[in-house]
């Protein structure tokens, strides 16, 4: 790159403006570097849901329970392999602000229904399945509170009181499970249904929703429809979706948030482009005389264009790499300190790829107008401007 020394010399000429321009580029890419990982974490939750699983909810409201005896009727349908059910427990530990994701289900088929979890110790699994008043606890949660197998854990339910009116349920830790995938979150508690159902004061023989594992995902829609038809005109009609579709609809609100972030990013980039394009334009205008002299010395129009473009790309890439590096460090710190979802944050090669694309694109856009102006310039007029 023979013109590099030329470009660097020019950069050192307008230091204040360069610092200002570079600063705005750094800020924009810092923002991009922070937001891209956040956007991706939302996506990873959708990947989590499985097209092979159907969710059967109460059609009237997803908060209303369904009778447990639906289970056997669903199990008889074609394409259905396994039927499980789940109920939100609404647990808090020690203080009401310390909410814990707790779910009630049947320990017998929990490992089959929920493939995202893994019991590495088969004895512990048997132990849990054998003791109806024991719970299975995710590794992250157990570590957080220092729970070990055999410990007694009092959980306060905000939804269900025991038959004596007490909202505090004390369970024994029967097993600790891990995530099947590297980045799964294991911060929940699993409570056996039978014990819970016998002990609770209201809502007997109902469940929150059914999960249905099907053999052929391509027939998911037909199977879902068959389930809903089964309970049509009953007091509790059902609405069946694939888990993926449900997760998506649930995440629509998150989607709105994503749109908001996206819109902010676009606005920031637009501002960045305006700021740098303006600075670039000013700096080019000041050098029209220089370019005229260079043209007289034998520089072709495309040489001048190349210099302007390189200058712009150099600005974007140096500012962009600095900004995204700072973002990478910040994300690293946040993910190390945070729990659950935020601990999944990372700035990886995909983000760098997007970032590099943005740097190249903005570099080209910013250079376009100055390059056209410089190319259109008449040499003699340009020379006159230096007088």
């Amino acid at each position: 790159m023979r013109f590099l020394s030329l470009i660097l010399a020019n950069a050192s000429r307008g230091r204040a403006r360069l610092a200002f321009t570079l600063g705005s580029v750094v800020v924009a890419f810092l923002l991009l570097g922070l937001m891209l990982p956040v956007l991706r974490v939302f996506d990873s939750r959708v990947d989590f849901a499985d097209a092979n699983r159907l969710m059967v909810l109460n059609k009237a409201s997803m908060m209303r329970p369904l009778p447990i005896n639906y289970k056997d009727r669903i199990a008889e349908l074609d394409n259905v392999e396994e039927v499980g059910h789940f109920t939100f427990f609404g647990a808090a530990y020690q203080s009401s602000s310390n909410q814990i994701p707790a779910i009630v289900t049947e320990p017998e088929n929990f490992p089959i229904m929920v493939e995202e979890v893994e019991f590495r110790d088969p004895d512990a699994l048997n132990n849990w399945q054998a003791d109806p008043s024991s719970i299975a606890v995710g590794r992250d949660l157990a570590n957080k509170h220092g729970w070990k197998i055999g410990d007694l854990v009092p959980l306060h339910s905000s939804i269900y009181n025991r038959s004596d009116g007490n909202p505090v349920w004390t369970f024994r830790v029967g097993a600790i499970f891990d995530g099947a995938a590297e980045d799964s979150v294991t911060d929940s508690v699993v409570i056996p249904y039978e014990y819970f159902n016998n002990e609770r004061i209201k809502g007997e023989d109902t469940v929150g929703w059914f999960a249905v594992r099907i053999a052929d995902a391509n027939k998911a829609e037909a199977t879902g429809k068959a389930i809903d038809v089964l309970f049509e005109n009953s007091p509790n009609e059902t609405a069946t979706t694939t888990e993926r579709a449900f997760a998506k609809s649930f995440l629509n609100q998150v989607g709105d948030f994503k749109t908001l972030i996206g819109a902010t990013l676009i606005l920031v980039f637009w501002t960045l482009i305006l700021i740098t394009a303006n600075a670039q334009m000013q700096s080019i205008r000041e050098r029209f005389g220089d370019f005229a002299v260079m043209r007289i010395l034998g520089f072709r129009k495309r040489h001048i264009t190349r210099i302007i473009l390189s200058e712009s790309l150099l600005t974007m890439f140096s500012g962009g790499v600095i900004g995204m590096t700072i973002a990478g460090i910040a994300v690293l710190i946040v993910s190390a300190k945070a729990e659950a979802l935020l601990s999944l944050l990372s700035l990886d090669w995909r983000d760098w790829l997007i970032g590099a694309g943005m740097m190249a694109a903005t570099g080209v856009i910013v250079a376009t107008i100055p390059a056209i102006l410089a190319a259109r310039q008449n040499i003699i007029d340009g020379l006159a401007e230096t007088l």
Partner: protein
Amino acid sequence: MTVHDTEIAIQAADRQDRPAFVQIDRVSKTYRKGKLAVPVLDRHSMIIAQGDMVALVGASGCGKTTLLNLIGGVDRPDTGEITVDKTRITSLSDAGLTEWRGQNVGFIFQFYNLLPALSAHANVELPLLLHDIPKAERRARVDNALNLVGLQDRASHRPEELSGGQQQRVAIARALVTDADLLLCDEPTGDLDQDSATRIMELLSMLNQEFGKTIVVVTHDPLVAEYAHRTEHMTRPETAA
């Protein structure tokens, strides 16, 4: 006639026999500003011999700069032909013309027109960036050119750190570095004091005599014109109605 004048006369006669280096053949140029037409050159012809040093004088606005731009291939005439060193430059394409002037013409302006961000060295190196010349050789050629104009110890200075005379010498070094045979100087001493002007003209004279450069100098100054072998007087064509 003094002995000195006689010598010049003999040299001049000698040059008449040399081949024409620049041939300007019935060149016309009219500038147009909207509806207004400003005729500047009207079938202007002129021959400059190889190794000649010509002063171009005439009233302000008579077309001296215009003619220089045409000879140097910075602008094109409306009609007529210009041939420089056997190249008919009026027939070259735009790109061809740009490349030609980069290799064959050295320009020296009244206001030096150095790039303010670049050191003297980098300014002189500028025309060499267009060619595939190894860095070491570029360095050697730039040092050489700066030596020739007596500014080797100012190589790292920027234009603003140099006097007008020094800046003009950097500009001359820049014109020399590509080894162009034709130097076109547009009022090269117009912005300089007498001492600096003398030094510049002695330098140009030396380049003409020692290196055989063909030089055209536009000037208002009779003292400057004295350094030339001959003086061309230009007048403005009658303004057409």
